[in-house]
């Protein structure tokens, strides 16, 4: 089965109770599909998205083998 890796950071990691999970890529076309697969709640405002470590949006295409990450606004520096 081809899979997509989903990662969570900071407050999103705490809310999901895990830092990473695998989902079946079948039926997933974009980031919004990934979110609805892992969470019943609507996509939270201000949440950032990365696909393979590049910033992306809910409409961005996702393929088998991709790593999709969800996290809050960054606060480094």
């Amino acid at each position, binding site marked *: 089965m081809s899979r997509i890796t989903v990662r969570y*950071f*900071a407050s999103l990691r705490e809310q999901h109770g895990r830092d990473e999970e695998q989902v079946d890529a079948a039926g997933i076309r974009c980031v919004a599909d990934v979110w609805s697969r892992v969470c019943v709640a609507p996509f939270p405002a201000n949440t950032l998205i*990365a696909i393979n*470590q590049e*910033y992306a949006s809910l409409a961005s295409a996702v393929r088998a083998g991709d790593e999709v*990450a969800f*996290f809050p606004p960054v*606060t*480094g*520096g």
Partner: protein
Amino acid sequence: MTIRVQKDGFNPWRELEAYQETHAVDWAGQYGATAMFIGSLRDFNQGHAVSGMTLEHYPGMTERHLEKISAEAHARWELLDTLIIHRYGPLFPGEPIVLVAAWSAHRDAAFAACRYLIDELKTRAPFWKQETTPDGLRWVEESKS
């Protein structure tokens, strides 16, 4: 162009001295300006006491974006070199979090690039601060300054 993301504490003054001795020696006489920014952990934030902090990051994506930001600065201004060192993991008040430095022939490019590097880092590099306060752990909200 050097990027370091590390768990270990660092002394920014010693890092700059070492970098000058190992790298800047190659372009001695070419640079007339060095601009630097050091960000350190305060013991207060948004009205409450802070006794410590843990910096979470996204390994790989962090380095990739710091490299991208540095490359953008080199494309925009005539720079001889840039340096970014950023901590992750547990930190205590007074400890340096980040060092950014830029070397150029004239000061305008060095000042502008240094400012660009720290400003872009703050909005694009995937780091998250969690403070230890008297009320417990608290994720820091994004800041405009």
